[in-house]
């Protein structure tokens, strides 16, 4: 088990290698990437920020829960912070388990809980030069002029 917030590009292959063991018959890699359209608007990039100490704690809690619930120690999660551009990986989750069913369930549990609980925020940058905070339900709060 390992979790990290990182300011560096995520090396997904390294995460896969980290969870790989001979007893594991299933290995899953989930990668969340920055897409070019959100709610019909052209996105040029996203700035990720976090309540860093709490985010690290929540991510560790989630992975511990998944490990106990789905019976595998082989879960690694990295979440990127800072300025990302289209196609960049914002989050990667590698899970390995003797059986595929539990591996899928554990991977799904980690991403869904992460999106609900981990204090991370996105400031989307649009093609027209504007920027807005995005929240989990897809609503936007306009950023005030500075």
């Amino acid at each position, binding site marked *: 088990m390992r979790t990290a917030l990182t300011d560096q590009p995520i090396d997904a292959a390294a995460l896969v290698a980290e969870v790989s063991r001979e007893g594991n018959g299933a290995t899953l890699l989930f990668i969340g990437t920055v897409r070019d359209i959100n709610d019909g608007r052209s996105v040029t990039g996203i700035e990720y920020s976090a*309540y860093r100490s709490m985010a690290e704690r929540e991510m560790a809690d989630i992975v511990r829960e998944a490990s106990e619930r789905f019976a595998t120690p082989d879960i690694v999660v990295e979440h990127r912070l800072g300025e990302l551009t289209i196609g960049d990986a*914002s989050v990667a989750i590698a899970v390995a388990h003797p059986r595929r069913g539990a591996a899928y369930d554990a991977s799904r549990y980690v991403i869904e809980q992460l*999106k*609900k609980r*981990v*204090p991370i*925020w996105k400031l989307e940058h649009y093609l027209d030069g504007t920027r807005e*905070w995005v929240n989990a339900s897809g*609503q936007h709060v306009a950023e005030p002029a500075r």
Partner: protein
Amino acid sequence: MTIKVLLFASYADTLGTGQLALDFRAGATVSDVLGRVRSLPGADVLPPEPLIAVNERYARRDQVLSSGDEVAIIPPVAGG
């Protein structure tokens, strides 16, 4: 007693700061902190029931605070 209040993302932008140090009487709760923050300019951006964490754990409104506690007012999270 002094309580450290943390603000993030849209809340920090609107209130113009990411951190406040506020004084309260002993026995103050999370609700008391929220009430004080709501009196600040720009605080009308806060929803009726914002997410709150005390010392990095999600907390309820009636949690009693101790001097030095860190209270974070957390905008809707958007990780992933």
